[in-house]
């Protein structure tokens, strides 16, 4: 029965499309060629597009609070430069002429870095850092580094004592005095030109500041030709990072030169216009290292790592080509599916740009996936074509037509299943993930065109140099596989099948049990986007250990009436909240307006610790609070909102959950009458909390819809429960198995790994569909016994399945080399899932079929439902 519907529809579809595709092959090729030109042109304009907003689950209440206060609290875009002695174990500290000289130069270098808010650059060398002493006649203050500083022992001793008095230990000076910090803040907008801050460029400038002190060499850009006021051979620019990489000659280099009128001229040349000379760096200090943290640096490092990934694409293509070569036995024929795959990627990127999207570092993996899917279909097609040519001795065109007729329907079915599978990712309400899903769906459209139309067309022109020899090669290799297929086909025997099923049920149970420990969210320290051992995360760990500075923070916004800062009830409530938070497990420290107001009030009370309190009198609170501008980030302009910074020990989901629960408990205890409303949450960990929430909520939903959609697609193509079970159950088993793997590898369910399930299942279902469709056909139409049928199925598709799995794995395993942690995680999981899905399909599918797939009753007719396969 099922054959009729499928057959009828296939017949219709093929009858319509085949003449269009194969009728005038040159026309088809020219149309596709022109389309490709258009897409290539579009793709070439695609821009790398990073957006912070896209990573947020915008609908979540925390993020609404985040958005509400984003503009109100300045001072968020910090960049911290920690100058730390490398020989700190020897007990040396910063009070040494050479260190001080480097610190002074570093402060200046940061000060003059374009994009910095110069009024907010702060180190012990800047005049805003002062010490205060309580004297009988009042308060007395001075600069930590006196104006008449000279590197004498006496002066260094004075600086040391001033540092203690200025209470900057842990902030501007390392806790053990082995390092010092330069704080700086970036301007989001250039106050002169109004241009938005270019993060990637600024990150490079920041890195150059580091290199200036840790690189023994510096690099002079000498002009090859006269430019503006400068003559050839003059040094136009000095840099501290070696620019001489392979693409330097094409890169833009900006420099400023002073012309004869004394005006500054901005020039931009190509790297090739310079001769780069390496000279000794006078600022180099071998005893120190510079550690940098800050959002801009993270963005820069992520962007750099993303560019790196692009170079993996070449490696991926090479790997896939090698696999295809091995499979087809011809490097040339292997190029056909491969180049169609690359074309599909070009199309995908073109469509992406056509619809106004940019390529996000997060979605940079989609082209790899498209290549993988494209190649996997290409293998099926090429494999069938080879089978026709080798086993049936058809010529190229007839083989192509036969391939088209036989595979266009299951191919498109499989791809539509993929589309639906990827579509379920749209349910995750995070912009970046949805964009990735859309991107992937564009990719599938591209694959359908490139693989289902272009490839058969191209194959029809392919000529085997020596068909006999080629056939011989194919036969020999097939013969090698025969015993394997015969062995595997044993699974179709009921007793063996039973054993396989029992084992799989047992391993399912085991995987379920292990995956109970599966964690939501990020499990490692540092910035989750970057690898734990990346320079940035090592810098961040170093700064956290040497200074009293936290990098993981949940900000809870205390909302109250205007002027809450001078209302004791408000301040006291916030203070109590902060104290409760500080006593919560997982919290390292807290910072809030009342806490600093207490310190100021204490300073005004002669430093007597008995006055380390919040005064009840609002006048005294005015005095204590007026020291803090909005840019401190501790209050908004009318003091109706004061964030409580809750620094957490890490950003593991358990820690976050614990802290959030403690916040909620406090809110509940306070009740409605409280003068303060505590709103969750901003800060990097606050955003993670929201993301974790969203992921936890949507994970089940996504999986449910994913499997439901796949089930519908599978059922639609086979019209049988047997087919559904045979295809779907191995898939689900692999999903659960992957969860267990995630537990072992310490990978949490997060924005990057949640789509993996959908991608893997969406693609993994292909194996099942291909195997089952041939198997069913052999049993139902060709009336073979199950074992024989499965042997035949494997002969026909087994190699292809193995090669597909290898090609898919090859195209994602290169991500393991990525500098971006989420790509590494995705790479590991997808590699495992692609291979496991293939294994599960080959082994489990026949086991289920042994019990579920019933041969047709002897009376039924087969009609002509199998037009393609010539017996």
């Amino acid at each position: 029965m099922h054959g009729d519907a499928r057959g009828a529809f296939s017949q219709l579809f093929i009858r319509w499309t085949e003449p269009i595709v194969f009728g005038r092959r040159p026309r088809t090729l020219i149309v596709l060629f022109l389309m490709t030109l258009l897409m290539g042109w579009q793709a070439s304009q695609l821009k790398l597009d990073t957006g912070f907003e896209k990573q947020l689950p915008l609908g979540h209440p925390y993020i609404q609070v985040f958005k509400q206060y984003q503009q109100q609290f300045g001072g968020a875009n910090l960049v911290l430069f920690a100058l730390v002695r490398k020989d700190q174990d020897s007990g040396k500290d910063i009070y040494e002429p050479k260190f001080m000289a480097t610190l002074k130069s570093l402060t200046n270098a940061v000060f003059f870095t374009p994009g910095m808010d110069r009024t907010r650059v702060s180190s012990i060398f800047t005049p805003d850092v002062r010490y205060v002493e309580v004297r009988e006649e009042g308060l007395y203050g001075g600069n930590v580094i006196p104006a008449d500083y000279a590197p004498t022992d006496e002066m260094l001793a004075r600086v040391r004592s001033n540092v203690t008095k200025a209470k900057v230990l842990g902030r501007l000076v390392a806790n053990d005095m082995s390092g010092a910090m330069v704080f700086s803040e970036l301007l989001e907008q250039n106050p002169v030109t109004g241009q938005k801050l270019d993060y990637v460029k600024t990150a490079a400038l920041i890195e150059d500041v580091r290199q200036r002190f840790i690189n023994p060499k510096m690099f002079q850009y000498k002009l090859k030709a006269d430019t503006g006021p400068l003559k050839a051979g003059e040094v136009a620019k000095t840099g501290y990072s070696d620019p001489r990489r392979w693409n330097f000659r094409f890169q833009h280099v900006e420099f400023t030169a002073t012309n004869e009128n004394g005006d500054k001229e901005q020039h931009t040349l190509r790297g090739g216009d310079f001769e780069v000379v390496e000279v000794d760096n006078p600022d180099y200090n071998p005893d120190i290292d510079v550690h940098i943290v800050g959002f801009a640096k993270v963005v820069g490092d992520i962007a750099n790592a993303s560019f790196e990934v692009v170079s993996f694409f070449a490696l991926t293509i090479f790997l896939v080509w090698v696999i295809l070569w091995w499979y087809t036995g011809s490097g040339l024929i292997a190029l056909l599916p491969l180049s169609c795959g690359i074309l599909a990627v070009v199309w995908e990127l073109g469509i992406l740009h056509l619809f106004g999207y940019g390529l996000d570092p997060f979605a940079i993996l989609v082209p790899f996936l498209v290549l993988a899917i494209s190649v996997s279909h290409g293998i099926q097609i090429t494999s069938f074509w080879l089978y026709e040519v080798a086993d049936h001795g058809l010529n190229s065109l007839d083989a192509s037509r036969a391939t088209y007729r036989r595979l266009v329907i299951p191919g498109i079915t499989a791809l539509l299943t993929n589309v639906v599978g990827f579509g379920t990712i749209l349910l995750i309400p995070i912009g970046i993930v949805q964009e990735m899903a859309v991107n992937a769906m564009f990719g599938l459209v591209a694959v359908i065109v490139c693989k289902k139309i272009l490839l058969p067309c191209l194959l029809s022109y392919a000529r085997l140099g020596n068909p006999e020899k080629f056939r011989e090669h194919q036969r020999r290799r097939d013969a090698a596989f025969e015993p394997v297929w015969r062995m595997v086909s044993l699974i179709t025997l009921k007793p063996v099948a039973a054993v396989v099923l029992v084992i799989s049920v047992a391993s399912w149970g085991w995987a379920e049990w292990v995956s109970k420990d599966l964690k939501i969210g990020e499990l490692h320290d540092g910035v989750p986007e970057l690898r734990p051992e990346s320079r940035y995360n090592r810098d961040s760990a170093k700064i956290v250990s040497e200074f009293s500075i936290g990098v993981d923070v949940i900000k809870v916004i205390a909302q109250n009436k205007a002027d809450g800062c001078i209302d004791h009830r408000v301040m006291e409530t916030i203070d109590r909240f902060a104290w409760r938070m500080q006593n919560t497990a997982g919290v390292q420290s807290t910072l809030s307006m009342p806490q600093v107001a207490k310190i100021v009030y204490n300073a005004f009370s002669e430093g007597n610790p008995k006055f380390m309190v919040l005064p009840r009198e609002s006048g005294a609170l005015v005095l204590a609070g007026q020291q803090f501008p909005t840019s401190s980030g501790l209050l908004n302009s009318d003091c109706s909102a004061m964030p409580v910074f809750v620094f957490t020990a890490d950003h593991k989901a358990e820690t976050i959950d614990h802290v959030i629960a403690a916040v909620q408990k406090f809110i509940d205890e306070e009740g409605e009458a409280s003068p303060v409303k505590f709103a969750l949450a901003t800060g990097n960990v606050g955003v993670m909390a929201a993301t974790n929430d969203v992921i936890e909520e949507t994970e089940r939903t996504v999986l449910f819809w994913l499997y439901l959609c796949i089930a519908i697609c599978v059922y639609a193509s086979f019209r049988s429960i047997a087919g559904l079970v045979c295809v779907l159950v191995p898939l689900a088993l692999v999903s659960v198995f992957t969860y267990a793997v995630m537990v072992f590898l310490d990978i949490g369910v997060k924005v990057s790994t949640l789509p993996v399930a959908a991608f893997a299942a969406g693609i993994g279902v292909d194996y099942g569909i291909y195997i089952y469709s041939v198997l069913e056909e052999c049993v139902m139409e060709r009336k073979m016994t199950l074992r024989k049928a499965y042997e035949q199925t494997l002969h026909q598709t087994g190699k292809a399945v193995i090669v597909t799995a290898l090609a898919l794995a090859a195209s994602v395993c290169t991500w393991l080399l990525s500098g971006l942690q989420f790509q590494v995680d995705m790479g590991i999981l997808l590699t495992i899932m692609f291979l496991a899905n293939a294994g599960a399909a080959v082994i489990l599918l026949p086991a289920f079929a042994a019990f579920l797939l019933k041969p047709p009753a002897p009376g039924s007719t087969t009609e002509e439902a199998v037009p393609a396969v010539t017996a």
Partner: protein
Amino acid sequence: MNARTMTTMLRNLLRAATLVVLIGSPTAWAQDEAGSEAPAAPIAPRPAEIARLSAQNLLLGVTCAGDTLVAVGDRGNILLSTDGKTWKQVPVPVNVTLTAVAFADPKNGWAVGHDATILHTVDGGNTWTLQQFKPEKGEPLLNVMAVDAQHAYGVGAYGMFVQTADGGATWTEVVAPAIRDDGLHLNSLVRLGDGSLFLVGETGLAGVSADNGTTWERLTVPYEGSLFGALPRGAKGALVFGLRGNVLISDDVRTGTWTPVDIDSVQSMFGGTVLPDGRTVLVGADGVIVYIAPDGVATGAPPAAGSLSGVVAVADQLQIVGETGVARLPIK
């Protein structure tokens, strides 16, 4: 904080803070509506929260109740310890900052603090009852002295000076115009060797009473800064300490003859105790610890963490409290 603004302000500006509001403060939100608002409902005492970190948080006073150490401080925290190492926070009916604690005997004692809070215990510090709480004025008691189970004194900011003769059932004002009329902070009250009461306070204020506080005589100390504490010395003498490392000793406080002690530090001293061997130990800002021999020669000791506020000697150990909670150091 902006030091330049601060240097321009006088030390006692806090008291004039209301005035600042009236003449217009530099910040916008100082134009508050607080004054125009209807008076809020009376402030009810809120019990202190038992917290994990209370022993590592600001503590201001420490004393011995028999064999038990009792420390008081921030947020109404009162902690007990029998070994100086493990501390247990006990329930307290109020969560305002407590500044001092004193015991008359191992059972009976008082703790005082901000909002003129007075707490009383009759079981060695395990349970506390609230005897006085005046949040409306917002003025703190800064020290307490227990004479016996019935009699005790409390001194505090702006000349606050109270006493009880009935175990704290009623607290009455001490009549001492010579001491109180200037409205200066009274920082510390001690009993001298001869049994006289001696107190010190702001701007070098000192006073003595030979009749258990009935009448008070104002004394002169050759120092104009704040004196944060005093310790008995000999029969009639005292050691006083205060702002910026100023320490003075006298063999008879009534003579007005004081000798400065050079402690080689400019940090303010906030607490001290007399050791069994006759030496005095002082603790203060930035963790400074100084030993002073009876002849007035000071020896420094390695500093502890944070500002220190109180100290008591137990056997060969100093039990110190301060900004970072409890600390225990061997006596040098």
